[in-house]
């Protein structure tokens, strides 16, 4: 079984973000980076599958970005991926999901992976499009927002999380792609010996120009913090009146009383 897991390196969410000079993304200077949380679930699931299948399987981790993403790649290698592909791209943050999916598909198409894992979305951009688009570009089955996964005899059973806590179970033949949701598993901590040994694993570096053939379909026109809201809503009147007004508001604007 040939397995691919796609990961993104994102800024630590504790960081303070400010827009960059062109107002199209955040300023990347002085940010601390780590693996996108959703992708940790993807890597863990891929590694578990790799371990189940044993040596007949092969697990590649792929990431697009500047040199700094090698740190996230090495974490995935330390968690148990066999090899890595680093698609070198200084301008990764300016790409829309269509371009990212196209780049990955250009690589994945010729390598014929049986299973592809991605995160459900990235913590920074949060478009949740790349996995689904990639499946479409490759013409393979796809299940998104997966919270349960198994694979037997080339059939994937994926439990999906739907709105309001409802779950759905899907079955699909490989080749297939799943996008992983929080709670799918408990990602392992990489062990220190494995972090050190990951140094010896192969990281294939490919320039993005070799794989990127598509123009972006959607352009970011502005990027800014939300405008400061006014002073909130003041509910007035006698107590009974106030309660009625608050109840009406909660019914109209929120889901808590439905």
């Amino acid at each position, binding site marked *: 079984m040939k397995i691919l897991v796609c990961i993104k390196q994102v800024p630590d969410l504790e960081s303070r973000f400010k827009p960059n000079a062109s107002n199209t993304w955040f300023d990347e200077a002085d940010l601390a980076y780590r693996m996108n949380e959703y992708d940790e679930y993807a890597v863990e699931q891929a590694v578990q599958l790799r371990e189940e299948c044993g040596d007949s399987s092969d697990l590649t981790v792929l990431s697009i970005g500047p040199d700094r993403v090698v740190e996230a790649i090495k974490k995935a290698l330390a968690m148990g991926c066999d090899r890595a592909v680093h698609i070198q791209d200084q301008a990764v943050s300016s790409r829309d999901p269509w371009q990212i999916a196209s780049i990955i598909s250009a690589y994945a198409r010729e390598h014929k992976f049986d299973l592809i894992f991605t995160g459900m979305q990235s913590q920074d951009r949060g478009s949740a499009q790349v996995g689904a688009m990639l499946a479409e570009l490759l013409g393979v089955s796809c299940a998104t927002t997966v919270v349960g996964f198994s694979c037997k005899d080339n059939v994937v059973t994926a439990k999906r999380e739907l709105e309001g806590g409802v779950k759905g179970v899907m079955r699909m033949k490989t080749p297939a792609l799943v996008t992983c949701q929080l709670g799918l598993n408990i990602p392992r901590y*990489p062990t*220190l010996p494995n972090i050190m040994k990951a140094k010896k694993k192969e990281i294939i570096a490919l320039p993005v120009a070799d794989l990127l053939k598509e123009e972006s379909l959607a352009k970011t026109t502005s990027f800014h913090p939300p405008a400061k809201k006014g002073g909130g809503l003041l509910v007035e009147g006698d107590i009974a009146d106030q309660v009625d007004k608050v109840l009406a508001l909660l019914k109209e604007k929120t889901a808590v009383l439905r």
Partner: protein
Amino acid sequence: MDLELTEEQKLIQETARDFANGELEPVAAQLDQGGDRGPLLANLKKLAELGFMGLNVKDAHGGSEAGVVAFSLAMTEIARVCASTAVTVSVNNMVCEVIQAVGTEEQKKAYIPKICSGEYAAGSFGLTETCAGSDPSGMCTQAVKDGNHYVLNGSKIFITSAPYAGVFVVWAVTDKQAPKGKGISCFLVEAGTPGLIIGKEEHKMGQHASATNELIFDNCRIPESAMMGKPNDGFRIAVAELAGGRIGIGSLGLGVGLAAMDYATRYANERVQFGQKVSSFQALQWMIADAYTELEAARLLLMNAACRKEAGKSFAKEASMAKLFATESANRACYTAMQMLGGYGYTRDFPIERYTRDARITSIYEGTSEIQRLIISREILKNLG
């Protein structure tokens, strides 16, 4: 010159931080209250499985072979959340390193993998005695040769992890006639050896989850092969290995100091008095500036000592400087942090009082600040000839 960490070092730091926040943080305050050590031992086991007990130990012996810088980073991250766990990890690493440095191949095989894998919850370092603290060469515990055995008699005090250690590195006098420090040898004593008695546990100010006990030798017979290094060379071994341990304790102190200041700074940025955040008062801003400047200097001293050790250069003076400055800065940082929280800092509802109690011992154990100054000045004066 490059002060950037390698990718591996960053990942080890991240793993230590994630583990500390995920596994240590939920139990740290509860462990400080004393009582059941179950959660401590469970976390030590997990830390061992991840490779934190032999950071600077060779892969062939079951270590992580990650180096001294990584050791320092890991200690700081663990101590940011639980100093008791951190000191246990630091001593375990030191015990592994002593055995790696002077043990025979058999001794290395017998004990290092057991500490690294977590089969032993801990290893202990048994040097201090009631009459021999800052001056360990004044120790009284004796090892007398009897056929192909040594018989140990005497006692040790303040031995970290003694109740759950699987093996003890122990120093004892083998030649009473020799000049001071020239008649001490180093031994490995397994837990459960008849005549090895774990004595009373100290009631301490802080670091409650880490046990500190008396150790008694009552005609404790150990095989001749339990000696580590050459006969009567034990004091030199202790001095050399303590230098490495000081990088661990300095890094631990740094972690506690950072935890206190990070908490206090966030707090001051929310607490309102006189209609404004207290962080808007210059008095607190200067506290923040001074404490973080000291902690940053401590970090750089620690990195310097760790890099020198990793590069195989002399590092005893640098390790002492780093331990002295980091642990004293950590103590000041905790007091500053408490001041910034006002009365709340003094209560158990906030973590600063725990950090303050935990930090206090760091400028005492593994050589007091006075002893560090003695080592540093001796090294400097030595060069004048």
